[in-house]
């Protein structure tokens, strides 16, 4: 499969490797819609297990976004990873896997990464109007949106 994908996308796949028995690809951001489509339709990865992100604030492209996919017919897992810069958005994979709806909303909520073409791009776990994205490394563990807490809950602090 790796050879087939490498042949098709060439240098767009910067890394295809295995760590502790788990396969993953690192691909260019521009290839994401195409490669996910190919993985779903031609390689039978019909179940999107999870979409998540990791923040590396010191890097030039500070976000890793990951798609963890599973194939029922092949009984195989794969991770697709891409690196994006601050403020850069990604195409939504809701048309491919409807389950991506809430998963992408959570990534937006926690990291502030927008997904284009998402049917309902808004926060999911934190309340509407909250400032900041808590899973970014520059967001402190006891930090909170004081203004929101004071206006909406009528208390000085949530702690």
């Amino acid at each position, binding site marked *: 499969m790796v050879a087939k994908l490498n042949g098709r996308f060439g240098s767009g796949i910067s890394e295809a490797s295995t*760590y*502790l028995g788990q396969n993953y690809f690192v691909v260019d951001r521009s290839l994401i819609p195409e490669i996910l489509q190919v993985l779903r339709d031609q390689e039978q990865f019909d*179940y999107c297990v*999870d979409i998540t992100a*990791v923040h590396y604030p010191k890097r030039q492209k500070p976000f890793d976004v990951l798609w963890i996919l599973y194939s029922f017919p092949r009984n195989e897992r794969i991770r697709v990873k891409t690196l994006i810069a601050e403020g850069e958005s990604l195409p939504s994979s809701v048309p491919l896997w*409807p389950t991506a709806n809430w998963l992408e909303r959570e990534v937006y909520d926690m990291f502030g990464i927008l997904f284009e073409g998402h049917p309902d791009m808004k926060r*999911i776990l*934190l309340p*509407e109007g909250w400032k900041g994205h808590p899973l970014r490394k520059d967001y402190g563990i006891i930090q909170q949106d004081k203004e929101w807490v004071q206006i909406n809950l009528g208390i000085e602090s949530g702690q």
Partner: protein
Amino acid sequence: MKPTTYISRLELGEKDETFLDSNELIINMGPQHPATHGVLRVILKLDGEKVLGTECVIGYLHRGVEKIAENRTYAMFNPYVDRMDYVAAVSNGLGYCEAVEKLLNVEAPPRANYIRVILAELNRIASHQLWLGTHALDIGAITPLFYTFRDREEILKIFEKYCGARLTTHAFRIGGCQYETYEGFEKDVKKFLNFFKPKIDEYEELLTTNRIWVERTKSVGVISGKECRALGVTGPVLRASGVRWDIRKAQPYAAYSDFQFEIPTGQNGDTYDRYLVRMAEMRQSVRIIEQAVAGIPEGPIMAKIPKVLKPPVGEIYHSIEAPKGELGYFVVSDGSTQPYRLRVRPPSFVNLQALDMMVRGQLVADVIAVIGTLDIVLGEVDR
């Protein structure tokens, strides 16, 4: 500044209409409705009693578990995972410990794996019992609740004797188990199994052919196997739609490859089939525990691991079959004592997303039945 209000997708674009123009009604169910199993708010768009659409508002129990993980060492974070799905704390701990063990490249000794399987399966029974009691209560059958809670108590007693806690057990440690089984553990487990086997028949007697139960659950909340896969729905819900998939079989972990058991499936993917699948699963769990107790090996219960855990730089995704579906942990290590990032893939969160599809076109009363049948725990949905 005014307080922010939640704007539902269901309300958008209908600002000009008055209530006289249409029969449509938008109402709130929750967040404190007793039948939502926690603090879940569902906005319902209704035409009379018919549901036209729903929207879930979640996050009321959000505690930032993933953020806490980044600020705790691997061992310190272990008890926190019990607080996600608090009715199946053992499974949460099992998944977390195995994920970190994989990252450290160590394996728990066989005896520890057997103890893990016994406790995890006991916990699966306890979780299914709690589901059955509350689900039946929501639909109007009060008796099963007393029966299931009475019998669940016996499992909690075993947990308490083993590790001192009943719900948030923290039974396992990274590398194995903290505690050796107590004197008479096997006897207690066997005694429970013999006590419990006829109890499943008792539950089934109350419900399986009960006319009210059948009418309230058959053809309610139907979801096909294909829709389940598209929506990422796992666990008993997926199996009741005819997909024979269980991580214990597909990608065995702990000691599951040593045991004989079947994966029960349904055909129709309705609430009644999901009920039957979970009942059959309890019987299979009994089978697994019987084999595990009979074959439990001697030996150490802890692998050789360093006092300070510093997994090498890398990423790992590990998932287990929790009572509610696929529970996955994605752990990123930067070589320090704390996880750089820890992502929990909660089964309840993903399964809850199917609610909208399952209740469309059905009655309001069926929403309650479907929330029950999805078997969600809000502590895990919101984390």
